[in-house]
């Protein structure tokens, strides 16, 4: 079956400041990442700050130019499209940003904000456009009376609804969501998550969902990729990833989340130290400096992503051993 989006060996390197007599160094924000997303599914990417998840999202939809690799969207490689072709492609690919305070122009009214994509892409008359705006507002649960208000008059949750209405007004197939609920309070977060779920069903959307919150990802996503220092270390179906974890980093990550139930005692695998600097990631497996199972081999050779069970891939030399408790 054809995938809706397929990312192959995507790379994004940012040049670091060159030092005299030294070769220029690069921060490998996204390093050789491959995955696919099927139509109608929600693909989650989780990781700690600085692991490259937001860069992955931006590079994938060419908000920043990739250093290498390709991104196929409906079979076309969007990394090689001309600017004009890319512009036309963008109506099928939309993005929702994290910070609803910084991503809405404070000098535009709600109506102008939501209508802006139509002004760019649609030849419809002004009345038709307004009809579209109203139906988009209704879709996300915004009252029509709000259309002449400015973003500062809204709460965080409502602003995020404006962002969603703006992203969906062109009826895109694919929406990138870069931490859409991180800035919201718990009760409002649940509203927005449920809204996103409902809209996905109604409009048969495909989501790429970026988050650092493993509970939110478990709630919303179908398949999940875990990133660490620019690389994917594990990809699996949601329940498979949480209940049948292979990679030691994923395990640490999952066991580190405090569970909102005092009766459940978690056995946190507490990691020593911090995430190493992305300027100078450790040789071999990037995780070996913090991994409790690391051996000499881990510091020498990078483990390639390999399939350990159907649909479940892991980048670890000793994944099976660790899972069975033999390491």
């Amino acid at each position, binding site marked *: 079956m054809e995938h809706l989006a397929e990312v192959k060996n995507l790379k994004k390197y940012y040049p670091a400041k060159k030092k005299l007599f030294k070769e220029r160094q690069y921060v490998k924000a996204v390093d050789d990442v491959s995955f696919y997303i099927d139509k109608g599914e929600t693909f989650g990417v989780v990781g*700690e*700050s600085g692991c490259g998840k937001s860069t992955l999202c931006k590079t994938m939809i060419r908000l920043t130019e990739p250093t290498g690799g390709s991104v196929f969207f409906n079979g076309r490689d969007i990394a090689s499209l001309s600017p004009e072709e890319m512009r036309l492609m963008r109506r099928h690919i939309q993005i929702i940003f994290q910070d609803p305070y910084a991503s809405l122009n404070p000098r535009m009214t709600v109506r102008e904000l939501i209508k802006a994509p139509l002004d760019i892409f649609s030849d419809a008359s002004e009345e038709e456009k307004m009809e579209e705006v109203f139906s988009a507002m209704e879709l996300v649960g915004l009252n029509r009376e709000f259309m002449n208000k400015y973003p500062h008059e809204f*709460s965080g*949750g*409502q602003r995020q609804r404006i962002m969603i209405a703006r992203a969906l007004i062109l009826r895109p197939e694919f929406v990138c969501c870069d931490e859409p609920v991180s800035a919201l*309070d*718990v*009760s*409002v*977060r*649940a*509203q927005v*998550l*449920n809204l996103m*779920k409902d809209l996905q069903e109604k409009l048969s959307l495909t989501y790429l969902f970026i988050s*650092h919150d*493993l*509970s*939110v990802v*478990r*709630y919303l996503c179908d398949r999940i990729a875990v990133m660490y220092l620019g690389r994917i270390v594990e990809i699996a179906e*949601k*329940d498979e990833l*949480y209940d049948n974890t292979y990679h030691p980093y994923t395990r*640490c*990550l*999952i*066991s*580190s*989340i*405090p*569970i*909102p*139930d*005092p*009766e*459940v005692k*978690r056995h*946190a695998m*507490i*990691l020593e130290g*911090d*995430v190493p600097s992305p300027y100078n990631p450790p040789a071999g497996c990037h995780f070996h400096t913090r991994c409790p199972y690391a051996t000499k081999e881990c510091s020498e050779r990078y483990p390639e992503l390999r399939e350990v069970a159907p649909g479940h891939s892991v980048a670890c030399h000793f994944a099976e051993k660790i899972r069975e408790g033999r390491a």
Partner: protein
Amino acid sequence: MSHLLEISNLSVSFLVRKKWLQAVTGVSFYVDQGETLGIVGESGCGKSVTSMSMLHLLPKTTSRVDSGTVIFDGTDISGYSDKEMSRIRGRRISMIFQDSMTSLNPVMTNGAQLVEAIKCHDRNISKKEAEEKAISYLAKVGIPSPEKRFREYPHQLSGGMRQRVMIAMALIQSPSILIADEPTTALDVTIQAQILELMQELKATSNVSIMLITHDMGVVAEMADRVMVMYAGNVMEVAPTKEIFANPMHPYSQGLLASIPRPDKTVGKLSSIEGTVPTLQNMPVGCRFSTRCSKCTSKCIESCPPLFRKDGHDVRCWLYADGEAVDGTSC
């Protein structure tokens, strides 16, 4: 038994566009020796304002305490002058803030800031002794090579390490109460787990009481002995941690707990609380949660309930009016 810290009927107002608006109304609670009280609520519910006003840390020009007493260790400290307060702050009651980057001084080394924290309460200590004490505390909070870190600046440390420096600074005078205002919110989960473990270890060794302010129910479940739920400047429910998670009584607590996705289970659909928190300008006359509550009655809209004590919970809700009213002051 008298409590280590007891706050009764605290109300705080802020000056917003030439009008005084009450952000915290009639808040009463206590903290016992050696216990951890979790204060939870969404942003703007007054959890930080409560702790800041307790320590007289709010700006005097734009805020005022309308009413309330703060009794700490048997003495009423609510009327203390700045000078008297500065003998308590940092020494008997200290605080860790959320954002370690802006809370540490960027132009002073970590060591100098720790030494300052020692010297301002203990004039007679020699420089050498103070430095040794500072280094030993850096080691105590799990900072590797503390002598080196002592001479470095905050920006040279990672977020988790900076938070450890803040904890060292807060504990260096062996305070009786530590107020931790969202201590792990800015950190990644793996680092958060480290810091929570550290706080539990330190609590076990020093028997300090902790007031843990957070919006993360997971952190509360793990750390707190008792939980106080706040909403729109009111205390809504107070109960032991196990009780509140197993049997939340206030509709707001119920809604809050039902709207958190679980990391250890797949749930079909989250329930959510409709609507948004009322603004300070349009607070409902009756129960402050009445605008969003599914069990709201006409009584809820007309008058604000007091805290009722029932089955070990203190709940501000008319549904439990058969319980004993513990707190006559309403909102």
